[in-house]
């Protein structure tokens, strides 16, 4: 597959390296001559010095026959324009944009760039995982439908500890897909799986039900909180 990478910074460099190793035909377009030269020295003759948003450079780079364009510069506006021009002018079937400001994800979607990768959001999610006040981490948003995969850590004192999965009242359209115990052992849960404190639960849910799902698994086992969870749906 012919893949064009716009931006030869750290992300572009390692991405290109990976793609070359996978056997793809790769071209990296980089504005900074030093960086473009370094890529050529280390990865072979796969870099082009130029502006990946400039139509003449894009023509020279062969956007017309590219099957995929991945824009990974540090500037969201450049990534947006590279992808939009690739799609609208060169009919590139797939365009992926890196997003630096997580707020821009929604904007890119509205402007026709469906596939975006937000490193900032990914890093934040990983850090949040370490913060006790954030027991639910969104892992992956599924295309369309408003569904996402999330991870919830079950506190030692949670009401669900000792309960069967089938007896836990989950919000609508939520499924527990995987339970990883304290020792790191993954289990595909069945209705009889019993929750333990310290379990990590990987679940599919609707974005708007995140909070309900989190409280289902993390609410403390106080005297008044056991009520609805004993009932089956």
């Amino acid at each position, binding site marked *: 597959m012919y893949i064009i990478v716009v931006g030869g910074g750290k992300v572009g460099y390692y991405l290109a390296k990976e793609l070359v190793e996978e056997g793809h035909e790769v071209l990296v377009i980089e504005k900074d001559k030093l960086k473009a030269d370094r890529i050529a020295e280390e990865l072979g003759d796969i870099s082009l010095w130029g502006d990946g*948003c*400039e*139509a*003449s450079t894009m023509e020279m780079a062969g956007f017309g026959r590219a099957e995929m364009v991945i824009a990974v510069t540090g*500037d*969201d*506006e*450049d990534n*947006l*324009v590279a992808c*939009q*021009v690739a799609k*609208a*002018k060169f009919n590139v079937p797939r365009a992926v944009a890196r997003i630096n*400001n997580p*707020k*821009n994800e929604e*904007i890119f979607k*509205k*402007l026709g760039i469906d596939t975006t990768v937000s490193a900032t959001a990914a890093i934040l999610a990983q850090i949040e995982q370490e913060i006790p006040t954030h027991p639910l981490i969104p892992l992956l948003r599924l295309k369309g439908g408003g569904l996402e995969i999330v991870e919830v850590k079950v506190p030692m004192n949670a009401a669900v500890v000792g309960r069967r999965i089938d007896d836990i009242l989950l919000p609508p359209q939520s499924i527990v897909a995987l339970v990883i115990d304290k020792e790191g052992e993954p289990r595909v849960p069945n209705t009889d799986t019993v929750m333990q404190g310290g379990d990590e639960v990987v679940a599919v849910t609707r974005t708007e039900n995140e909070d309900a799902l989190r409280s289902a698994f993390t609410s403390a086992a106080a005297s008044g909180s056991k009520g609805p969870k004993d009932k089956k749906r």
Partner: protein
Amino acid sequence: MKVVIMGCGRVGAELASMLDREGQEVTILDLDPDAFRRLPAGFGGQRHVGNGIDQEVLSRIGVGEADAFVVVTQGDNRNVMAAQMAKHIFGVPRVVCRIYDPIREELYHKLGLETISPTKVGARLLKEALEREPVSRGSSD
């Protein structure tokens, strides 16, 4: 008419001051607070420092209520992104965007933006000036 102008360079400042003199409600935005020195002393509009491709900034300075949005920063891509945000996210009725690169200008014009390429306009005006009175050094020989 409420007009928001993004970019207080020479063109942005000149346009802001023209509209302000006409009595329009003008808001001008720039990343650099020093840029506002280009505005004339009696300028009556609002000045804001901020990044115009940040949705929160655009919302804070009232782009959602603007009748028109003009984007004239130095970066073509920045202009394109801000113009599309104003048009498609804030629903501004009139959005005009400067794009220096003629090819990108044509493309975004086709995609529905109101665009102006100073490169094309400038070259055309210069050519017209040259052709207005055809002269040649050699013609009198």
